[in-house]
């Protein structure tokens, strides 16, 4: 729905593009502009730009009629498409004339019901157009239907006295227009040619994959009179502002440095940024640090909307299972090697025939599945590879992704599992002792850290109630920071229940226990308790200052 874009105030950093496209109809009439082929990576915001343009023209402009059509949701059987295209155009025209969005949203309303409204608007020529379209339909004239639908905006511009700005989204799908079954009527897309030539009816066309869109426009009939507008990713500061504003709406706070690192990884892609913010909300995060963002990210590329998006693209692009494995192998090879090998060598390394390899390479190139420096696609593909080729479990993949993005580059990561048995916490304390020595911590600091981990383990042993009598520990140590994660299965103890009484209150009462979390909070810089899958996780963070390191 073209009027269902994000609020204009939240739409950042596309002012120049929007301003130019708003003026496109006027410029085109003066022969100062062409049709616009809007190109850019998937998720960069091409559809959103069209929606913002539609909204802006719909509410703020009288002299240019906006028409938005997405082929993504269109039925591509030509007769069905023609009816859908024509009906949507009429409804959007009437909605614009009356400034009444209801006509756009009401998809099922038959055109006949609109006749009185059209008549009251004095759009007699539109009534003629509807009759003409109906006649073509009644006579089973396929091309007549297609032409009267596609030329409807041009007719409206010529007879209605106002230019129509046509926005065709997901235009790459128009290649699949057909009569009875896919592929039986190639070239139906060229029917748009005449409409695009009309100066009263500028077209903005976009879609993905970029290579396919470019291929359609390599046809001279469409190529001529078309200019490219490339939509770039958001710059770093804008992307950061967008991410922060999305989180703010969900009452989530985020560590700035961690957010900046994420924004850089997401390459300023608004789709990814929105998905990440939504993931944080779904995972009921309140504050986001490096580890939280790593968790949200692993969720996104494995189970979230980003994963769903790329899974759909992948499934749509490759239906053959064998080819899918080859493509995954190829992507992984490129990820590991970081550069492209020659075909002959690739064929040997991957153990596939050159023909199959060629098909895999074509799939990658034509469907934007080559990473093009996008780490998100790389991570999505890697997780898919681990799942489908290596047979790893979701937990193992999640762990790997989280470790990749939650540990500082100069850190050492240690993992251990201890039983919930008497004095097992001392084993964990011993580990802290050695890790502390590795990073030259002052012995006194180390002793405090040992106490914190001892308290955390005791707490896990006392409260878990699980049959699985194990505590999972992970230590990430760098010269600047020590992070310890202690996970225990079983009952969750919520942070709310951890409020400990003051010493005075404790001294007056009979209960002298319950100092553990007070100690942890005093010793560590951060103590976070959360439920992660079936475990309670306590994260202890100590930021190491210069005075805490041995000279």
């Amino acid at each position, binding site marked *: 729905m073209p009027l269902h874009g994000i609020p204009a105030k939240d739409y950042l950093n596309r002012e120049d593009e929007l301003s130019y496209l708003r003026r496109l109809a006027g410029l085109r009439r003066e022969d100062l502009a062409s049709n616009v082929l809007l190109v850019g990576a998937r998720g960069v915001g091409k559809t959103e730009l069209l929606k913002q343009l539609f909204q802006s023209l719909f509410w703020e402009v009288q002299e240019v009629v906006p028409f938005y059509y997405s082929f993504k949701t269109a039925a591509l059987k030509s007769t069905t498409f023609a009816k859908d295209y024509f009906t949507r155009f009429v409804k959007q025209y009437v909605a614009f004339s009356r400034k009444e969005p209801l006509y756009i949203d009401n998809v099922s309303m038959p055109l006949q019901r609109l006749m009185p409204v059209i008549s009251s608007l004095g759009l007699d020529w539109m009534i003629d157009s509807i009759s003409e379209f109906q006649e073509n339909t009644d006579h089973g004239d396929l091309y007549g239907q297609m032409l009267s639908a596609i030329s409807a905006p041009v007719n409206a511009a010529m007879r209605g006295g106002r230019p129509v700005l046509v926005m065709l989204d997901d235009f790459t799908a128009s290649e699949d227009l057909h009569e009875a079954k896919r592929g039986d009527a190639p070239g139906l897309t060229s029917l748009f040619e005449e409409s695009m030539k009309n100066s009263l009816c500028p077209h903005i066309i976009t879609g993905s994959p970029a290579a396919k869109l470019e291929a359609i426009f390599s046809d001279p009939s469409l190529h001529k009179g078309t200019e490219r507008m490339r939509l770039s990713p958001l710059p770093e500061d804008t992307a950061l502002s967008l991410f922060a504003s999305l989180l703010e709406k969900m009452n989530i706070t985020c560590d700035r440095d961690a957010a900046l690192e994420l924004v850089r990884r997401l390459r300023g892609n608004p789709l990814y940024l929105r998905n990440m913010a939504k993931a944080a909300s779904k995972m009921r995060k309140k504050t986001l640090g490096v580890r939280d963002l790593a968790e949200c990210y692993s969720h996104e590329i494995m189970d979230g909307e980003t994963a769903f998006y790329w899974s759909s693209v992948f499934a749509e692009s490759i239906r053959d299972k064998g080819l899918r494995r080859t493509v995954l192998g190829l992507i992984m090879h490129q990820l590991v090697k970081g550069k492209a090998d020659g075909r002959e060598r690739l064929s040997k390394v991957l153990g596939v025939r050159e023909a199959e390899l060629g098909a895999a390479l074509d799939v990658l190139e034509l469907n934007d599945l080559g990473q093009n420096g996008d780490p998100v696609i790389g991570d999505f593909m890697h997780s898919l590879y681990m799942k489908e080729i290596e047979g790893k479990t979701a937990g193992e993949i999640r762990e790997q992704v989280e470790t990749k993005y939650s540990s500082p580059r100069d850190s050492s990561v240690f993992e251990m599992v201890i039983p919930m048995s*008497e*004095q097992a*916490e*001392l084993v964990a*304390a*011993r580990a802290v*002792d050695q890790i502390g020595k590795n990073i030259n911590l002052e012995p*006194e600091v180390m*002793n*405090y850290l*040992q*106490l914190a981990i*001892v*308290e955390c383990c*005791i707490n896990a042993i006392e409260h878990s109630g699980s049959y699985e009598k194990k505590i999972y520990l992970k230590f990430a140590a760098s010269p600047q920071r020590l992070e310890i994660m202690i996970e225990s299965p079983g009952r969750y103890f919520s942070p709310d229940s951890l409020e400990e009484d*003051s*010493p005075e209150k*404790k*001294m007056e009462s009979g209960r*002298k*226990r*319950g*100092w*553990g979390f*007070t*100690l942890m909070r*005093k*010793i560590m810089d951060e103590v976070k308790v959360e439920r992660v899958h079936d475990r309670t996780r306590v994260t202890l963070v100590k930021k190491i200052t210069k005075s805490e390191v041995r000279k």
Partner: protein
Amino acid sequence: MNSTPFNVGSRVVEDVAVIYPQGYLNNLAGEGLVAECGRYTQSGIRKIVVNFRETDLINSIGISLLLHIMEELQTAGGTLCFTDMSKVQLGIFEMLGLTKYFRFFPDENGALQFLNAAGE
């Protein structure tokens, strides 16, 4: 931290019992310590010094048991002193706001002198 197995030794100096907890002071060890103190209070001793020089680590349960000993002794009209605590051990009591409930001495002699003076 050496975390040797917990043991508790003790001796009597005039009317003062001096107790030496060794190793890791946790729930099990703390109960041993409580029992040792209880043995002396039952025999009529009201002045107890706990010397921590051989104690490696005191966890929060150990602390709660020390509070318990202190409370028992106070009820009986006695006095409890702690000596030879490491900087970290003392720091833990400070963190928890418990220093005002105990008497701390750098060494055993200081505590014994204080208790003798208090008894005169």
